[in-house]
């Protein structure tokens, strides 16, 4: 086959290709651009924070102080209104001033300290609510975490951890996203949801304005956050958003 014949065939294949209808992207793009994380074009890339091995306790305390400070500040309140579903606030991790080396994040932590592995029935009894399972799936392991008076279930499946809680009015999970973390709006069962991907982010449990120290941890995996009338959910996973949503849609 000569070059000309090959080109003819490729052009024919191109001409015969049928594409799905092009979606109208202008509206969705503008909505995302109007969110605070993308309010203005950046003049230069923001320095990225990368996790490094060898955590120093002082660094964890610094992170904790930052979480608490943000939660208490008016800025934190504003972010809480603009990002996140009820029970979850998402805000940007402040970027260091020019010339300042960013504090390394602690290494990722899948569960945090104090997680206790128990049988499913016992976990439900301890948490005081029934674990809700994705259709057709059974957890490989179940953990209970206690933050002050509050308990959270973590159901571990092959490929994702599902965090479930029934939060009181004042309680929430706070998330701090470095510049390299993408925060994407999405939906689960018609309800607002958020998809965090890219670089690791920080999660802490907030009892009102107070961050519970034992709950602060760095999450490396992608995270889908949503809530329904039944529960508050967080899925931490290596799956794609599409696969994560497919599973999430099966929860009540």
């Amino acid at each position, binding site marked *: 086959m000569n070059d000309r014949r090959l080109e003819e065939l490729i052009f024919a294949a191109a001409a015969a290709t049928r594409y799905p209808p092009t979606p109208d*992207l202008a509206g969705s793009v503008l909505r995302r651009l109007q969110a605070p994380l993308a309010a203005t074009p950046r003049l230069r890339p923001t320095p990225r924070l990368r996790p490094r091995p060898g955590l120093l306790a002082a660094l964890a305390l610094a992170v904790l102080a930052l979480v608490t400070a943000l939660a208490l500040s008016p800025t934190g309140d504003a972010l809480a209104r603009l990002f996140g579903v009820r029970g979850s606030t998402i805000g940007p991790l402040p970027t260091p001033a020019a010339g300042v080396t960013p504090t390394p994040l602690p290494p990722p932590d899948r569960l945090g300290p104090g997680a206790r592995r128990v049988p499913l029935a016992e976990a439900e009894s301890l948490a005081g609510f029934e674990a809700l399972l994705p259709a057709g799936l059974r957890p490989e392991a179940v953990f209970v975490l206690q933050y002050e008076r509050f308990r959270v279930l973590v159901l571990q499946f092959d490929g994702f951890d599902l965090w479930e809680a029934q939060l009181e009015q004042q309680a929430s999970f706070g998330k701090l996203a470095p510049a390299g973390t993408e925060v994407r709006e999405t939906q689960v069962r018609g309800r607002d949801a958020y998809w965090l991907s890219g670089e690791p982010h920080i999660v802490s449990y907030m009892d009102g304005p107070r961050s519970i120290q034992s709950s602060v941890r760095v999450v490396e995996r992608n995270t889908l956050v949503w809530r329904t009338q039944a529960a508050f959910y967080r899925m931490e996973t290596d799956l794609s958003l599409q696969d994560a949503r497919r599973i999430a849609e099966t929860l009540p």
Partner: protein
Amino acid sequence: MHLSEVEAVARARRGDPSAYAALVEDNQQAAFRAAYLILRDAAAAEDVAQEAFVRAYRNLAAFREYDAFRPWLLRIVTNLALNEHRARRRRAGLGERLAGLLRPVAGPPADASLVAGEQASTLASAIDRLPANDRVILHLRYFLELDEEEMARVINRSRGTVKSRLHRAGRRLRELIEREFPDLRD
């Protein structure tokens, strides 16, 4: 509103959302199709195209004002789509297992979007089996009909590199045809 591309970029850089919306409307088909050719999944291609427009906006300050916007955008689209494609391959085993549990009905075959002649369909299947970089270069040239200058901007290489990559992709495609699709030879 009708703006020249240069004017739209300039206004968008000053923070005018309607100007950027015009840029999105003018380029969304190319962005979506470029992503779709790599991913073969309309929803994922939409996500990638949307993400590319957002990233392009965030980095408008780094864009050279009098360059063409579309090749620069397509570079972002292509990189994002290739990243997503690689991530999907890594996740394929697990994702398919979970998807199978939740939705046992199989999706459409990879070449379902091709309906024209049998040869065209077969050739498209052959292209889909090439390495990602070869596929991208062929898609840019023949499916999105970019010229060499535009392609050079998309892949951020010289025109000479574009030529050599096109040549290499064509050679690999021809070898694949000789080996596995002999009906296409004549």
